């Protein structure tokens, strides 16, 4: 390339002519940036919008109000309100009789179909009512029962009455019964008392997140109790005590590697080490918490180290100057000053653990468990796994319940993250 001499005036001319084009290019890049940010924001809004619109109805469901004659002899044949006695009682027959007196089904088939209108949890509901308030016996009281999930879907408009009978999940008879019930104003759409208080159930109208919620709390507690002390101890050791040598280097490389290992691999490790070798039971929050603790450990260590590094050396020097020992400097000064940063990292790690699913699938926390776990040794499941299981079920109503559970989970995560940000803003000192 030969160098060409350009007259300064000519050069000014060239620049002047090109400046418009260059400005336009600049604006274009700015526009691309705005579009990218806008797209990301749209994705986020669309995600939340789609979950929220699907999940909001999941907090509500259709109930039918029936007049129940609380006949002690029939509900509680032994008269002692024990579970066995209530189980032997014929509460569901009483409910069906009350229902039949309104809709008046004719014939065997119609009766059989009519029995399915009210959710199969009706006898449990009556048992619970009389247990809480035995004075109900001998009275006739209005009681609300959940409707079966197919009828719920019909009332929400997911099942069209114009489709041929053979192609929809509920028959013409049932539709007539439901119409009759709504004519008498017995059907109501209310806040579901199953979604928060119910546990895992194959009947979508009775399914709730209580068991998974407590499982999550137990698992997270184990995770916190293991990961927080270990993480802080490791961070303190690496930042304040350890000499820079081969061993600390190996530890640091290991921590970085662990942060990159896919979460499902931690589940495999839990399966192979904790369950197969140590012989711990499957599906328990203790093992789940241990696996999640190992998984969140790198997050906590890395943020704790950053927090410790941010404590200025002058603080340490002052403490050494008045005769403190190394550990006194660490425990009396460095750790308290670094605590907000460490807590922020821990909360973010816990939020990660709360949303994690894959490793818990590996250690069997995916089992169908109706009972609410009472201790870390009871089999249980957690919220994200419950969401995964519900997402697999075919019934229409589970989609709403799943989205409702997701809203609850997201609510917790957002609260935790907001709290972490608040902590960081409020407590963190600028030196």
């Amino acid at each position: 390339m030969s160098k060409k001499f350009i007259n300064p005036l000519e050069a000014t001319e060239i620049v002047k002519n090109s400046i418009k084009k260059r400005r336009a290019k600049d604006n274009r890049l700015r526009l691309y940036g705005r579009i990218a940010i806008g797209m990301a924001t749209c994705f986020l809004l669309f995600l939340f919008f789609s979950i929220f619109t699907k999940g909001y109805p999941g907090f509500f469901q259709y109930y039918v109000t029936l007049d129940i004659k609380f006949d002690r002899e029939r509900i509680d044949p032994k008269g002692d309100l024990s579970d066995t006695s209530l189980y032997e009682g014929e509460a569901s027959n009483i409910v069906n009789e009350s229902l039949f007196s309104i809709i008046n089904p004719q014939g065997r088939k119609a009766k059989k179909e009519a029995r399915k209108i009210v959710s199969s949890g009706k006898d449990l509901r009556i048992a619970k009512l009389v247990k809480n308030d035995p004075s109900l016996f001998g009275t006739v009281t209005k009681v609300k029962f959940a409707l079966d999930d197919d009828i719920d879907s019909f009332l929400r408009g997911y099942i069209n009455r114009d489709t041929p009978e053979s192609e929809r999940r509920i028959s013409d008879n049932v539709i007539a019964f439901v119409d009759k019930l709504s004519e008498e104003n017995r059907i109501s759409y209310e806040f579901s008392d199953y979604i928060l208080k119910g546990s895992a159930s194959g009947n979508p109208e009775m399914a709730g997140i209580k068991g998974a919620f407590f499982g999550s709390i137990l698992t997270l507690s184990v995770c916190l109790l293991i990961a927080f002390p270990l993480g802080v101890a490791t961070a303190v050791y690496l930042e304040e005590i350890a000499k820079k040598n081969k061993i600390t280097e190996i530890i640091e490389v290991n921590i970085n590697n662990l942060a990159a290992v896919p979460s499902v691999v931690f589940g495999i490790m839990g399966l192979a080490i904790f369950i197969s070798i140590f012989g711990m039971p499957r599906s328990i929050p203790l093992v789940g918490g241990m696996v999640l603790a190992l998984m969140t450990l790198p997050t906590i260590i890395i943020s704790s180290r950053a927090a410790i590094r941010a404590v200025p050396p002058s603080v340490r020097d002052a403490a050494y100057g008045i005769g403190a020992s190394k550990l006194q400097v660490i425990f009396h000064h460095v750790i308290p000053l670094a605590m907000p940063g460490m807590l922020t990292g821990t909360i973010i790690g816990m939020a990660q653990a709360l949303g994690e699913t894959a490793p818990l699938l590996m250690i069997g926390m995916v089992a169908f468990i109706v009972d609410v776990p009472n201790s870390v040794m009871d089999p249980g499941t957690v919220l994200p796994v419950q969401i995964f299981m519900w997402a697999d079920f075919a019934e229409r109503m589970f989609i709403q319940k799943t989205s409702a559970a997701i809203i609850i989970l997201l609510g917790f995560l957002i609260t935790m993250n907001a709290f972490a940000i608040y902590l960081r803003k409020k407590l963190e000192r600028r030196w």
Partner: protein
Amino acid sequence: MFNFYLLVVILLISFLFFFMGLKEAKKLRLVYKNNLHSLPHYYGFYALLASLLPSLGIYFLMTIGDDFLFSHMIKSYIPDEVTNAKDYNFLIALAQINNSVEGLIFGTPPKWVTDAAELWKSWVQTSNIIVASLCLLTSIASGYYGFLKINQNFRSRNAVEKIIMTLLAASSAIAIFTTIAIIFSVVFESVRFFALIPIDEFLFGTVWNPQFEGAERAGSGQQGLSQYGSIPLFAGTFLISFIALCVSVPVGLFSAIYLSEYASSKERAFFKPLLEILAGVPTVVYGFFAALTVAPFLRTTGSMLGLDVASESALAAGLVMGIMIIPFISSLSDDVINAVPQSLRDAGYGLGSTKNETVLKIVLPAALPGVVASIILAVSRAVGETMIVVMAAGLAANLTANPLEAVTTVTSQIVTILVGDQEFESAKTLSAFALALTLIIITLCMNFYALHIVKKYREQYE
């Protein structure tokens, strides 16, 4: 519950020793007129640690060890006609006994199983008594030993600090142990898998069709129905990751450029956390979103355009995964773009270049290694991502490059194989471990390479 109470009692005993030590030290302080080596509470802590640590050590060793001991001891109680049977497997026998111990009884187990279970239960009781008494004795004896050591000249602060230093060092070794545990758990099973299936068939085979061996035998009696060629799985994984990158790289990169170069500080303070929310959404939520919103949407749009989109297409999973990894790319790239020294930008402006020219010709080339590293990290995230593909990508191991078809991935195969009932020692179960091993190797290599690039790049400016 037994374990819980035992731990509480051990803890209470150690607290008792703390107060005894504290009281003794305070008494000594009065006697020697403040001429004590350490502050009184260090004597208390010494007694506490002396009581707590040995008994806790014994407790954990014994509770972990008893299962090994029992399963070794039970061997001699399995009758000969069972052990001599052709398909005898000790692990299966052990599982039968364990189920019976835990009260999980299906049908009527053979008599030797119930007998062995009864025996096992009695052993557990004896071992509980032995563990409890040993732990309590140790905690009292060693606590008392620590207590006896308290005198005017005992340097308790130094002793306590030494113990705590050791504990801190030990806890930092957990990271190493975890790595070893991961490698150990994956490598051993993988070696057993490669003993059954040749490694070249696994690495280069193009058909993935694992079957439970039981099904194989019950079927035609033929051997070798299962095929373990992992190429379709890796092809599926990388297809989905590629789609994810097509979404996340442009969006993430342009967002990073905009936020670091063009945005006002207010915009930055608002949009940066907003993008990070995307990283905080649990993957199971993304999976649900992909399976129930994006996939049906793609299917209907596809059929309107006359395309046949599978209901579990790679495209749906890839798109949603792309949304998930946007923040990984944007925030890491943002960091490296910010790390480019201001002097470089100023030099560019000084020569009269516009912002666009400064960004594209000076800042980005300088930040390129870091940007590449962030993309590699995002790929390793995408490769290891599990829930989205389990819920949205299907299980059919197709070897295809068509994003509209269903593919399966390494992680979703691992989950499908290991969740639920497994056959002992079957090639299918073991194959999950081999897949996990290759997955770890791939993600670790990517991570190493990315960190290496970042490190090299940092050295240039600092």
